[in-house]
């Protein structure tokens, strides 16, 4: 057994992948982190409090983990789902009826709910430990945008099953946009934007119309939400997360008393 192990680790193939021995010495432990793209997100050494669960609650890490789960399950769901008013509901129905032990939709939905909760708790922890204070002001703001993106990801996904729950929740949510000051046709100030008695902001061109590609939640909205949910927001989120993690390191690692 030991010989076999030795033989494998001596091959050119093995050595081309791993450039250090088993990480049980300081040197190898350092190399294990430095020579791995993913582990390289971390510094080589961390403060004890930074890995203490009762300090960080692990909520940022869990949020990221849930984001990965969403990416994988979402990708699988995309194979079976077509975003048209005619087919969307049928496809979801088929997922539930024809796939044995199909839990992809469940995983995707429950992990999405959880992700919203873990983002909130992460923000709560960061606030309560004062970790937004200098030098971490900027990263806190990256976080605030991530919070908004997380909610938008969840909101756009909510529409896709195209059942009563979905359509009406999005209707209630986007109805708010009608009342945007100046930009929504039922918002204060919208009537001021008119020329020669011609209203410029009306139900057919206000922000809500732009969001939904129509006057109500219809096929246009479904496609728009689908594209944003599957491509737009995940790309933005991934980019911001990269910045977020990078900044955690650059700002001196996870916060702790000086």
């Amino acid at each position, binding site marked *: 057994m030991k010989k076999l192990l030795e033989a494998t680790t001596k091959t050119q193939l093995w050595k081309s992948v791993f450039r250090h021995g088993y990480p049980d010495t300081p040197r190898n432990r350092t190399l294990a982190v430095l020579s791995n793209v993913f582990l390289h997100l971390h510094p080589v050494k961390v403060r004890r409090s930074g890995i*203490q669960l009762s300090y960080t609650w692990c909520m940022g890490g869990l949020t990221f983990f849930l984001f990965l789960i969403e990416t994988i399950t979402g990708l699988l769901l995309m194979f079976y789902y077509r975003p048209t008013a005619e087919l969307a509901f049928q496809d979801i129905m088929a997922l539930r009826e024809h796939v044995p032990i199909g839990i992809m939709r469940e995983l995707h939905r*429950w992990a999405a709910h959880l992700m919203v909760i873990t983002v*909130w708790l992460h923000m709560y922890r960061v606030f309560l430990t004062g970790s937004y204070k200098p030098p971490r002001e900027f990263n806190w703001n990256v976080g605030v945008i991530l919070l908004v993106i997380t909610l938008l990801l969840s909101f756009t996904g909510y529409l896709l099953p195209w059942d009563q*729950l979905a359509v009406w929740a999005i209707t209630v949510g986007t109805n708010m946009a009608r*009342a945007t000051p100046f930009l929504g046709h039922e918002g204060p100030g919208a009537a001021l934007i008119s020329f020669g008695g011609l209203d410029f902001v009306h139900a057919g061109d206000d922000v809500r119309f732009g969001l939904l590609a129509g006057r109500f939640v219809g096929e246009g909205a479904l496609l728009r939400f689908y594209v944003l949910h599957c491509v737009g927001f995940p790309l933005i989120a991934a980019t911001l997360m990269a910045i977020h993690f990078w900044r955690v390191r650059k700002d001196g690692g996870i916060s702790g*008393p000086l």
Partner: protein
Amino acid sequence: MADYIKHAVNWLTEPTRYFIGFTLAIILILQFRKFFAKTFVIVAFFVLGAAFLVFAWKDPNFAKIIGKPDNVPIVILLATVVYFSWLSLRKAVINDERIARGEPTLEGDFNKQKVFTWPDLVYTELICLVLFTVALVVWSIVLMAPLEEPAELARTPNPSKAPWYFLGLQELLVYFDPWIAGVLLPSFIIVGLGAIPYVDTNPKGNGYYTFNERKFAIWFFWIGFVLFWVSFVILGTFLRGPNWSFFGPFEYWDLHKLEPMVNVDLSTYFWVNLLDQPRPDNILLREAPGFAFLGAFFLLLPPLLAKTVCRSMFAQIGMVRYQVMMHMLLWFALIPLKMLLRWTVGLKYIVGIPEWFFNV
């Protein structure tokens, strides 16, 4: 006995009592934090909570609303927020005592040591990952994701609710028009959160839990997050039924339950009740009392507070920061203010100009 408890719970969760109760609880907990940070408190909470769930589950109305697959996360939200609030308070209390004795904080003690990322951190992450994956898979097997009837735009379900994380905002629609509850306040929340690091100049409490060194900040976040966000989400999910009427957790969601709404604008109070004359036709004149009130609230209050209650804070953070913070805080203060006015004198709008969609 069982009926008695159910009635008591239904009575207690009526929005006015719910909100006041929640507020009092937070005040008590933060004031008597030494007591509430004890371990038996959290144990007692979860034991009693579990006992209540077991008891309440037999009630069909309760099981229907709490057991709805999409509502399970709200129960998790409640449990985790309570637990982590307690945990942070406990650490804050311990740290405050240590600081008072001149000892390093819990985190400070730990910090002198540094550990290798591999294996310590990587293994922690791995274990978290495996446990969570297992939990998610089990959850997904036990509970099916909901799917209702196909979308039909001609048939509005009652109640129509936004996704659960926005129900706090939907609850605000009881008191405000959409342009405030759905547009202005959310925008202010985002901008306000972003402004926090620049407004809070207190250098203490960076990287460890504490209460005494950041009293205002901690109060602010508990009230903002726990009370106005989390408790409203719970209220909106579990206690609001058809027509957004209130329903106790043991109450049947009756479509015909109507709550009488006789709310009156400030302008009516001023012109009709106080001056005993009809409201003027000129819109601006009609709403002048409301504008005067809002003007005083947003323009006079900040300098007034700066000279009195917030004197030391004003001196510490300076004009610009103070103004930014005050205006954010006043917008949020408008929420409980309007709630109180609604409950006590049935006030509808402070400024009510439906002609221009401008109602405050």
